């Protein structure tokens, strides 16, 4: 595969991964345009909802309640789903989930499998495992199909091919579907995809899906989508396997009323998603004969056990935080080196990796808070980012090489200086002297060494003024006492 690296275990750190993308003007233009369009739609539809903040509060409360009672609801889901004819599997990690799915597929003698867009399958690196087992995975979501045929990777949770424009889509389809005359209008492109996919829908008897929600009360699974291709995968094959993170459960069927509203408006700027599929187990003569649900932990229990980080699992994957994020806007999704990009990816990925990979991601944010403001389930992403940064520092500061790391040394010195006013004054005086070496005649600093060079990469810095505020204040107070002693009004 020639595309970007989307496995956090081997992906380069965010600042490094962002570099080639910042040079890719076309991709950045595509991302800025697409996020602008989605955001404008989202803002319009949120504005028409008078009770948006109450809806948000309800959605947040439902998700928080689920997380506080997760075991109960998962067991209830298992009972109900099993009673309806489904088979529930529990996977503690990615490897176990892959092997469960492969076992089912082998039992089905599958050589091909059709897939609905599922981020969770990317999380467990399912496609490479299928390929290694000689099973061809066919992505049926239009965007995922574009990426699969283009040897590319998803860059957005909801709109995976957001970084590709239609001329690029035409080029990929023309090349991979053998259609040299294909025009680049949306109708022609979707028609080509339809023809290509119909054959697969009608011939492949096994499908894999993710899940937007699992309903504990009824044992149902809910999937929302825009194209109907998902509906094809859910209804035509003989065997359906649904892979879902354990946090996806909702207590009651009626909770969908709240969550489908906030999801559609936040994700695509629609009042309701065009296709809402809901099913419970199997029904003879209607839809798949065999239905499996794989419930995936893969680090989620650990996230659940942490007070601040727990809220990460409230996420319903609407991607509103990506669309509003000024960092994502510049880099798109590939820089995050994970199927989960943007602010939510920055907090989810390192946690799913037990803080052993993706440690640069919590730093891939200016903490501007735009993500928290739009989150329909009120995940305080900046708060979690800061918590994860503290965990990264706790990990790193034990490493001997950090003792000479300029960032760590600087933080140590600053902390010593901030601990007392006399030390702080000394640090100010020394800083002024030290920076004088780099200050030009006009009082500006244009080039600094070391970490400072990261600042002067694009920004000048005013040289330190000769008098700090506290020096001015002290002088003024001394002056005003003198004035008062001489019986005059203090100068203002």
């Amino acid at each position: 595969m020639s595309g970007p690296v989307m496995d956090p275990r081997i992906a380069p750190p965010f600042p490094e991964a962002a570099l080639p993308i910042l040079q890719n003007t076309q991709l950045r233009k595509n991302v800025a345009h697409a996020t602008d369009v989605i955001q404008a739609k989202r803002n319009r539809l949120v504005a028409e909802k008078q009770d948006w903040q109450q809806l948000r509060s309800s959605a947040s409360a439902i998700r928080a309640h689920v997380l506080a009672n997760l075991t109960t609801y998962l067991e209830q889901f298992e009972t109900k789903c099993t009673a309806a004819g489904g088979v529930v599997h529990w996977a503690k990690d990615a490897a176990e989930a892959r092997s469960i799915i492969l076992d089912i597929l082998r039992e089905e003698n599958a050589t091909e499998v059709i897939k609905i867009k599922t981020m969770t399958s990317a999380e467990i690196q399912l496609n490479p495992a299928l390929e290694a087992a000689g099973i061809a995975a066919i992505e049926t979501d239009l965007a995922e199909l574009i990426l699969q045929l283009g040897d590319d990777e998803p860059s957005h949770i909801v709109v995976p091919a957001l970084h590709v424009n239609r001329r690029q889509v035409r080029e990929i389809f023309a090349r991979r579907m053998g259609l040299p005359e294909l025009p680049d209008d949306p109708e022609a492109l979707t028609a080509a995809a339809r023809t290509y996919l119909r054959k697969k829908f009608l011939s492949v008897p096994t499908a894999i899906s993710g899940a937007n929600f699992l309903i504990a009360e009824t044992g149902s699974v809910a999937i929302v989508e825009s194209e109907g291709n998902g509906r094809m995968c859910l209804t035509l094959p003989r065997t359906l396997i649904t892979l879902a993170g354990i946090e996806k459960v909702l207590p009651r069927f009626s909770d969908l009323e709240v969550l489908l509203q906030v999801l559609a408006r936040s994700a695509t700027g629609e009042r309701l998603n065009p296709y809402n599929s809901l099913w419970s187990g199997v029904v003879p003569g209607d839809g798949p004969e065999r239905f499996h649900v794989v419930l995936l932990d893969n680090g989620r229990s650990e996230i659940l056990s942490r007070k601040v980080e727990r809220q990460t699992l409230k996420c319903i994957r609407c991607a509103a935080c990506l669309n509003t994020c000024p960092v994502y806007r510049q880099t798109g999704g590939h820089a995050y080196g994970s199927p989960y990009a943007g602010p939510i990816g920055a907090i989810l990925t390192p946690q799913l990796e037990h803080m052993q990979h993706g440690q640069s991601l919590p730093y891939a944010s200016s903490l501007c808070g735009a993500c928290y403001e739009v989150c329909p389930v009120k995940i305080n992403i900046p708060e979690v980012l800061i918590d994860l940064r503290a965990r990264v520092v706790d990990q790193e500061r034990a490493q001997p090489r950090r003792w000479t790391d300029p960032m760590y040394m600087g933080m140590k010195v600053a902390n010593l200086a901030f601990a007392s006013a006399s030390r702080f004054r000394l640090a100010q005086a020394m800083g002024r002297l030290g920076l004088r070496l780099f200050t030009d005649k006009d009082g500006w600093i244009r080039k600094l060494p070391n970490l400072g060079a990261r600042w002067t990469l694009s920004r000048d810095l005013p040289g330190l003024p000769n008098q700090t505020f506290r020096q001015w204040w002290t002088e003024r107070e001394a002056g005003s006492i003198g004035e008062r002693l001489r019986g005059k009004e203090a100068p203002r």
Partner: protein
Amino acid sequence: MRVSLFITCYNDTLFPQTGRAVVRLLERLGVDIEFHPAQTCCGQMHANTGFRGEAYSQAKRFVQLYRDTECIVIPSSSCVAMIRDQYPGLFDELGNEELRRHLADLLPRVFELSEFLTDKVGVDDVGAHFPHRVTYHASCHGLRGLHLGDRPFRLLGKVRGLKLIPIENLDRCCGFGGTFSVKNAEVSTAMLDAKLTDLLATEAEYCTALDNSCLMHVGGALHRRNLQMKPIHMAEILASTEAVDPESVL
């Protein structure tokens, strides 16, 4: 009214003219000011970079220093946001009951400058005169952390001679983000470029804000490119009168 001024570490060191403007402005409004010489930093830089223990010791120091103060004014929205949003969590995790109580008592007495003027003093018109074209940059912490809302606009709207020019994408970050600007310097620069495009489209003479950190970022890029627009903290605009121009005095 007697207020204690927490000037913040970087204003003290890098932007003393902002502190002097706050003093002149508040004294003009009849406010009695004190400056606690033991003050240093609120702990934001350490907290946001992940140095939690260090941030906590600075937070503890702040609360102990100011716990008996009637009212604290801070001309930096990000430092106020640090105190309001992060101190409670830090004290929950690392502090004790006594500190948490002192913090809870203290928080309602901590004001960002524009909050202090509009909410506590109760004025929009501070009698300023600043005959220039100005655009306002909403810092993320002021906008989404403190929910300053229309306060800065009300204050600027009453400044004589000032022509306020709105900026596109007011709510979008300038890319500073503290240590983000060096840890992710290239991405930060790309964000800054986008902000500069919006700023320059206003054709304003000054870009003002309630945070010198954003202004240092934006101003550093304006200077690098030899552009005429100048960064200026809002305190310096509000302190200006017909008799006192910031350029001559500050």
